[in-house]
């Protein structure tokens, strides 16, 4: 995208301002950004502050929920380490393993935002990944797994309205499922 000020250079600076509830996005090249004073009061090297990011994200989410729900979460507190919800919003960190149980319902949307998926697919505790052969070239996808992957891809394709791809995946899924049925008979 080109700079919205000079229109000549590639925009590499995005600035969102909200004035009287009207959101405005400005895309500028770095030269114009400096000229217009957007860079003066902020460092370009600003590390992304995750704690604020969590706070903003979850506050936004909270505002969509019935107030009864938010009241209840505000009162949530980990019985094991004493971390409460506000503390998590400020630090972006939990205090102990038990926090994940206590705040489970609250962090689901955040986890989806961060990782796209909240289902754990990594190695099981005590299992050995190094013995599982991490050799990338020889990897085989199990049919059963493949089905799940296809189903996920289908959802993705529908989400981005890529119906051509979706139709293709749907046919593939059908083929595998029919093959499975055939096997059982």
């Amino acid at each position, binding site marked *: 995208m080109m700079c919205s000020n000079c229109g000549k250079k*590639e925009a*590499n*600076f995005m600035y969102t301002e909200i004035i009287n509830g009207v959101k405005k996005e400005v895309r500028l090249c*770095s030269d114009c*950004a*400096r000229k217009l004073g957007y*860079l003066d009061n902020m*460092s*370009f*090297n600003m590390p992304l502050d*995750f704690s604020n990011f*969590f706070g903003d994200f979850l506050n936004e989410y909270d505002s969509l929920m019935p107030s009864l729900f938010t009241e209840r979460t505000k009162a949530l507190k980990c019985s*094991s*380490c*004493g*971390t409460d919800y506000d503390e998590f919003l400020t*630090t*972006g*960190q*939990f*205090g*102990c*393993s038990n926090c*994940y*149980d206590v705040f*489970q319902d609250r*962090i689901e949307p*955040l*986890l989806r935002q*961060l*990782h*796209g*998926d*909240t*289902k*754990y*697919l*990594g*190695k099981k*505790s*005590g299992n*050995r*990944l*190094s013995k*599982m052969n*991490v*050799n*990338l070239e020889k*990897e085989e996808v199990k049919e059963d797994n493949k089905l799940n992957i296809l189903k996920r891809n289908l959802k993705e394709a529908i989400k981005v309205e890529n119906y051509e791809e979706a139709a293709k995946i749907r046919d593939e899924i059908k083929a595998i499922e029919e093959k499975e049925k055939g096997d059982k008979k």
Partner: protein
Amino acid sequence: MMNWYFQSGKESDVVLDTKITISRNIDGFPFVLKLKDRQAKEILDTLEQSDVIANYNLKMLRLSDMDELTRQSLVEKYMLNSKYINTDLQNKAILMNEDENICIVLNEKDHLKIQVFASGLELESSLNLAMEIEEKLDKELKFAYNNKYGYLTSSPTNLGTGLRASVIVHLPALSKTQNLSKILEAVNDLGMNIKNIYREGNRVKGNIYQISNKQTLGIREKDIVKNLKAIADKIVEQERVARKILSKNQVELEDELYRSYGVLTNSRKVTNEEMIQLMSDVRLGVDMGIIKEITDLKVNKLDILSRSANLQKYFGENLDVFDRNIKRAELIKKIIKE
């Protein structure tokens, strides 16, 4: 053996190095934020006596026993996070071997941050080594884990596999041919983090970028590494194409790169910023076989030793900015002569 960062590895004309990080917490202890001093100490003591640690020849160095320069030099080698070296140093430590390719940080953000480094593109073997260490330590320590989310980390950003794989790439030709933003955008769209390593204000210096996975949950360990490998391969390919295009203007390119080499090797003082910029040209020249006066191993050595804290450690004295610039010029001459 040589320290890993002085070596030269696979695809090292583009990929400078690989790092695998696994974050873990010990079951039954609160996370670092809520850890009591006595518990933090217990973790250090347990690991100091661990057989696994002994078998890998890892030695414990407590941050509180190091001088500031040493801590800073570890940050420059990407072993410690700069965020944690100025605050509370009590009961924080690293476990490191002589080659420095294995470095476990204790009580930083999580109880353990297992890091494995390698020169060049070495994702699979680095993951295997990191996992091997993790699995052996898991038997001794038992890591916090639940069936729903996998390995539990203090921040939800690392939850699940706790695995962060990263490569550092040098992309001068893509940058000189104005193709860099296209590549970086594509990498971003593929769900990877990109960070430029050196910047002054809003200017990117040195054309060096770190690419790492965003997702740690909902994905298998080997897929994290596989995806990153695929992207790294693609970037290597594109950068090499761009270098071919550049080399069509042989005289122009040689002139530009040799000018940088000339300034780097003849100056009496060199700032950190200049160093980073000039080194990008010199590295490109060496990797393309244009500059023959210096080897890639010496480039790696210069790259590490010229960083502010490492420079002072090398000369064994505390230096202010003015003296550092002079000593940096001395270092360059010395290493080229070696």
